[in-house]
């Protein structure tokens, strides 16, 4: 039996001394110590994406901001997770998400269960300074059980990752670039015509907003169930 030796590191997060193992991210260690860093694209059990940038933190000695989800801790690091500057950036990120597409909370099936909506409330975003874009986007209702509403998508790619990594179907992907990116099924076909979709609904339940929903739900009725993900991840760890 081999003895694993793991290098341990000490660092400061918000002035608090913490220790962790080499390779752990700032986000992981902060959460272990009940230091809250807001995230949207990150989801425990899926691979890192680092797209939303809500988890940006300051590291002493660098003028750059670091995404806590994708930055490994280092010995002696001094991390600040909350400052006026970070709050300003985080609020602007949420405002940009709202202005980029047509999120109309009042008439959304996910109203009251939406991570974007609750993030806005938590960060004190009570209006959007930026002009809204009002893009003309479609709703894919071709699937008998689920619906994809591009108007409400924030491109977090949780659906893409859960479909590829957990379900193993890789039905979902992203087309286009930048602000014109969109979630697609297979080779950009109607979801109902997908040959790879297993109908498992994992994408629906990891989606933070009302972009992926069950059909037949009315306003505020779409309550996502996430419990399966930590369970499946744990089973997979046990298999190793």
């Amino acid at each position, binding site marked *: 039996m081999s003895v694993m030796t793991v290098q341990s590191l000490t660092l400061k997060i918000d002035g608090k001394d913490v220790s962790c193992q080499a390779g752990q991210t700032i986000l992981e260690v902060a959460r272990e110590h009940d230091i809250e860093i807001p995230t949207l694209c990150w989801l425990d059990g899926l691979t890192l994406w680092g797209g939303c940038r809500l988890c940006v933190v300051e590291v002493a000695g660098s003028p750059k901001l670091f995404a806590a989800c994708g930055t490994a801790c280092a010995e002696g690091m001094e991390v600040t997770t909350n400052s006026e500057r970070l709050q300003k950036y985080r609020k602007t990120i949420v405002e940009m998400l709202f202005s980029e597409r047509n999120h*109309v*909370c*009042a*008439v959304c099936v996910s109203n009251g269960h939406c991570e974007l909506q*609750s993030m806005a409330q938590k960060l004190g975003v009570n*209006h*959007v300074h930026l002009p*809204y874009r009002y893009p003309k986007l479609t709703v894919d209702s071709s699937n008998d059980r689920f619906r994809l509403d591009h108007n409400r998508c924030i491109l977090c790619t949780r659906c893409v990752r859960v479909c590829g990594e957990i379900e193993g179907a890789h039905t979902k992907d992203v087309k286009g670039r930048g602000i014109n990116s969109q979630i697609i099924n297979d080779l950009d076909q109607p979801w109902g015509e997908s040959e790879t979709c297993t109908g498992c609904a994992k994408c629906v339940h990891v989606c933070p907003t009302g972009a992926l929903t069950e059909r037949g739900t009315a306003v505020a009725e779409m309550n996502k169930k996430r419990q399966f993900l930590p369970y499946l991840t744990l089973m997979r760890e046990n298999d190793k």
Partner: protein
Amino acid sequence: MSTATKPTVATVWLDGCSGCHMSFLDMDERILILANAVDVVYSPVVDPKEFPASVDITIIEGAVSSVEDAHKAELIRARSKFVISLGDCAVTGNVPAMRNPYSPKELFERAYVENATEPADANARRMKLPVVGVPALRPHATPVHEVIKVDLFVPGCPPPADAIWFVLTELLAGRVPDPSALTRFGK
């Protein structure tokens, strides 16, 4: 008794469903306390037809959708010391802004020609487009703060009566309230 010393409040209804006004009225017996504390000088629920020359607090419900809405908003701003955007339509554009991916021309075509059945001839239906006596639509229905400076935002669809009560009583007490614990987008 003179009401001259009471703070004056106006409420205005732009492109919204009046639900925010309903929510305002839904604060039960507290409305009596407010009625004693302020003078409602202009509102859909009181009689004056002209917006007064000077108002302490003006509450705006609804998005700015028409040319008339924009004129009203500018007049209100010029004559109000403190302007509140009340509810998601005023704050975000909300449901009225759902038309924004389409042009007003496309909207009218959809509503009055494609989705109408009378008269049978499509061109005759097109002749019935409402153009006289109604204000022209702006290209987009926008949040109020895209047109005028807004001093306080109270999101919600509608904002709960508790949030409206909290905001008004705090303002009357001389504090600038943060109603984020009581309401949010879509509440």
